[in-house]
């Protein structure tokens, strides 16, 4: 099988019937990211764009493609890595991210959950009552907002891909959560200080992996020890089964969702300033401060027990 240009085929895009060689695939991929940014009006000229990176394939691909088109878009890139403090997992991601940033001559800024909450994620999940992914998600978001604020960034880009979006949509359908369905659009929620953008949100995960492999990007592939089987992985497998039977289903999930959010309105929650950190929040005390405070108490109790 050959690409239309005569080159050796590396990919069949079943939902459009096209066959690509490496060169044509790279061209298509980079143009697709550029088109997504333009059509969803994600970035303005002269924006300072933060990028949340983990060293995994999605954020590494995002960073390398954005660095290729940053000149054309007239933007600057500011990678940020959040160190959750997960033994046996985070280090390989940090190494990969450092190498990528060095090769692109970008300055990598790191921030850690330990600095924010006083404990690493490993310690938090031992001490606290919530699930590790709850601490991780809430505190990571908080840290990214904080960094974006300190670095005076205009946008914050994340590596969410088409599969992530389709999965989130299906999960929110199941829960009937209209507000979250709206929030997926990535416009700044009132509690974020910065507009979030997802330039890979129209590209399937498989194509992202292919781009990383074809271009030999430095990618960490370790799985987080807390990931495990969950509701999301089941939805993921279900959508992939649909897609292999009927190529194009993932894109249809997205276009169906776009129609639905057009005809519905999200609930407007009154906004407060968190009494502890002063950041905007729909609660009197924001979720991040609530978790951090809870941990402080647990930590005190634990030291007392040891002393007794």
């Amino acid at each position, binding site marked *: *099988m050959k690409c239309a240009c005569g080159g050796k085929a590396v990919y*069949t895009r079943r939902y459009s019937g096209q066959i690509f060689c490496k060169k044509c695939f790279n061209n298509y991929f980079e143009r697709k990211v550029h088109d997504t940014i333009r059509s969803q009006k994600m970035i303005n000229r002269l924006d300072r764009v933060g990028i949340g990176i983990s060293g995994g394939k999605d954020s590494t691909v995002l960073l390398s493609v954005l660095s290729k088109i940053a000149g054309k878009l007239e933007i600057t890139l500011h990678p940020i890595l959040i160190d959750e403090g997960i033994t046996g997992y985070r280090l390989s991601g940090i190494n990969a991210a450092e190498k990528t940033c060095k090769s692109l001559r970008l300055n990598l800024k790191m921030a850690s959950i330990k600095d924010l909450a006083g404990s690493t994620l490993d310690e938090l999940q031992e001490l606290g009552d919530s699930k590790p992914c709850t601490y991780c998600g809430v505190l990571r978001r908080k840290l990214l907002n904080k960094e974006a604020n300190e670095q005076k960034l205009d946008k914050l880009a994340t590596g969410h891909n088409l599969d992530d979006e389709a999965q989130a949509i299906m999960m929110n359908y199941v829960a009937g959560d209209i507000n979250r369905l709206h929030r997926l659009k990535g416009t700044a929620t009132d509690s974020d200080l910065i507009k979030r953008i997802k330039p890979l949100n129209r590209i399937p*995960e498989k194509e992202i992996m292919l781009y990383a492999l074809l271009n030999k990007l430095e990618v960490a592939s370790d799985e987080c020890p807390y990931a495990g089987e969950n509701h999301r992985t089941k939805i*993921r497998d279900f959508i992939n089964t649909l897609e*292999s039977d009927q190529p194009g289903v993932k894109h249809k999930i997205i276009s169906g969702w776009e129609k639905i959010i057009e005809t519905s309105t999200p609930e407007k929650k009154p906004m407060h300033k968190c009494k502890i950190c002063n950041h905007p929040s729909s609660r009197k005390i924001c979720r991040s401060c609530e978790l951090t405070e809870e941990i402080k108490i647990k930590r005190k109790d634990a030291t007392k027990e040891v002393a007794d």
Partner: protein
Amino acid sequence: MIVFVDGKKKDISKEDCRVCDLLEELGVNREAVVTVVNGEITVEETELSEGDEIKIISAVSGG
């Protein structure tokens, strides 16, 4: 025909077997992987030959 999948020997009974047939037989969803045959990334319609070495790389992430 004998091929090697991620280093393990696999006997395929079928005469003509494409990468996608092999994935199906292994119960692997082609949407969730990238396949490498004899060191090169290839389309899943590629016909396999005796002794081919196939690597299946997962494209999906858990975290």
